[in-house]
């Protein structure tokens, strides 16, 4: 099976700063990939390159196509939700459905209408009359009714309340995703997506600093809660991060033998958020 996204030495410069610094990537079908990084790390630039919305240097193929020259063909197989506010404000709900049904060969009107029936959206409403959450419901109904191979989500739930956010990912997982599809998602609310991800990509200063499946993350990284008397022993093993809580130290280790760590204290699976903080420390200093 060929990779959905394959990048080799992908680079993009804005003036003197490198938004992407020779990135190598391989995303297989049937994965849900979280692309996570601090603000300005190059997440959006990477997604834009994948979607053919920006020029770049290096090699990049999406579903076997060059997104710079084949954006039109690519968009038959690829969908994206850029962020919550991109549906045109003058568009009516019914017009949106008619238009996408008219131009997209892989759109199912029946499925879209079934999805819309679950919401409070009315066909005559214009986007400008909708709340942010309802706009996302509309956009998601449109996108989920498209049988695409790759779905790209760039901060899809930004500014939504927790009810809409939960619903968004639940719908995506229950009614959309299957082993034929691939989803790439960027978000700052990692804790909300980590249970649905199969793969994790950390990006920092235009470089991929972590590229692993969630299983590998679980094997590689371990968090240990250590009493003060063993703290120095723990530090000797070169933890990648250390924080204090209730007088104990919590250390995060990368690739250290579990048996040795268990001697120091209680072992935990680290959360992606903690892993992120550990990996990105010093980004803004």
């Amino acid at each position: 099976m060929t990779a959905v996204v394959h990048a080799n030495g992908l680079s993009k410069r804005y003036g003197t700063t490198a938004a992407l610094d020779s990135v190598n990537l391989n995303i297989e079908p049937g994965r849900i990939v979280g692309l996570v990084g601090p603000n300005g790390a190059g997440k959006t630039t990477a997604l834009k390159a994948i979607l053919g919305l920006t020029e770049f240097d290096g090699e990049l193929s999406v579903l076997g196509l060059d997104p710079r020259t084949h954006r039109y063909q690519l968009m038959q197989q690829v969908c994206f939700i850029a962020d919550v506010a991109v549906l045109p404000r003058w568009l009516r709900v019914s017009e949106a459905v008619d238009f996408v049904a008219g131009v997209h060969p892989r759109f199912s009107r029946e499925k879209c209408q079934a999805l819309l029936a679950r919401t409070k959206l009315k066909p005559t409403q214009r986007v400008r009359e909708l709340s942010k959450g309802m706009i996302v419901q509309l956009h998601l109904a449109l996108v989920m009714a498209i049988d695409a191979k790759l779905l790209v989500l760039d901060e899809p739930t930004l500014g939504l309340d927790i009810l809409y956010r939960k619903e968004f990912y639940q719908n995506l997982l229950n009614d959309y995703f299957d082993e034929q599809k691939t989803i790439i998602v960027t978000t700052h609310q990692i804790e909300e997506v980590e249970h649905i991800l199969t793969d994790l990509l950390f990006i920092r200063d235009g470089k991929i600093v972590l590229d692993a499946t969630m299983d590998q993350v679980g094997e590689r990284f371990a968090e240990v809660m250590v009493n003060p008397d063993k703290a120095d022993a723990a530090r000797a093993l070169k933890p990648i991060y250390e924080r204090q809580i209730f007088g104990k130290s919590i250390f995060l280790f990368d690739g250290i033998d579990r048996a040795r760590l268990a001697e120091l204290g209680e072992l935990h699976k680290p959360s992606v958020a903690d892993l992120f903080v550990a990996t990105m420390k010093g980004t803004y200093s």
Partner: protein
Amino acid sequence: MKQGSMNQGSMNTIAAKVHSPMNTFSWLLKREFWEHRGGFLRAPAITALIFLALTLMGLATVELTARRFDFNFNNLHIDQITQHIANNDIAQVGTGVDVALLSLGSPIGIVLFFVVFFYLLGALYDDRRDRSVLFWKSLPLSDTQTVLSKVVAAAFIAPALAIAAMIALHIGFLILLSLYALLHGINPLPLLWSPLHLIGLWLKLVALIPLNAIWALPCIGWLLLCSSFARSKPFLWAVAVPVIAGIMVGWVNLMSQLSLPNIWFWHKIVGRCLLSVFPGSWVNAEAFKDLARSHGNPGDMLGAVLSLDSVKALLTSADLWVGAAAGVAMIAAAIYFRRKRTEAYA
């Protein structure tokens, strides 16, 4: 498993649907109409209604004033005046009706100019500013199709709707005038309603749409190019660049005493880039100077302008085709920038 088999089923029905490029293009045109109903449809319709209302007010004023003062004109009552006209050459009256109807419709032409001008300036800019371009670009639409749909909307859809409003205004105006005539016991039918004549006039208006479109290409191209290229303030780009260029050319002329008259640049470049979407603005072209000079009275001139000869003169003029070629080149450039740019500053 269950989900997998369901997807298989829906994929089969999806594959059966046909999506030809023509079909997509007609959806793009519908999209333009949905977004710009206000400018394309409502603006000319409201203008037509306003002028009908003004006509009604005018007729009422004439009637009331005439009654109050028992108005006499060369010892003729007002109904006798119309009777007098009826006895005159009907053909003369027909031309008069043409002139009246066309000048009545001209405000709609002016509205059309402003609507199309600002439509084109915003066509490839507004969606970048509000970021909805990212939604359009997430659909399988090529940039060429998108830009061409805007060309067609500006060159054909907006003018066609404006002419429909004009025709409605003409009919409304003739009905009002006929009612006024009936009020004075005159049969309006032979005077105002000669169906062949009216249909001829309207067909000419419709037939001029493609001619106007070719003539407008440099303006359409330039405005779309600015709309596609500008990261902010497309209006400033569109106006400032040709105007500053015109001033520079004038200055160079002044310095070097070249024989090429300065007015040439303003007329052929600045004017065409900014104003040629004005319906019928080709009447000012060189080919028409002589035609206009040879016809003294406005009725004859109008006839000449709308005649086959004048269309032939325009169709064989370099003005038209050089401008059209420049317009096509600028549209191609607009497509190029549409592909490259997705950002704009508010």
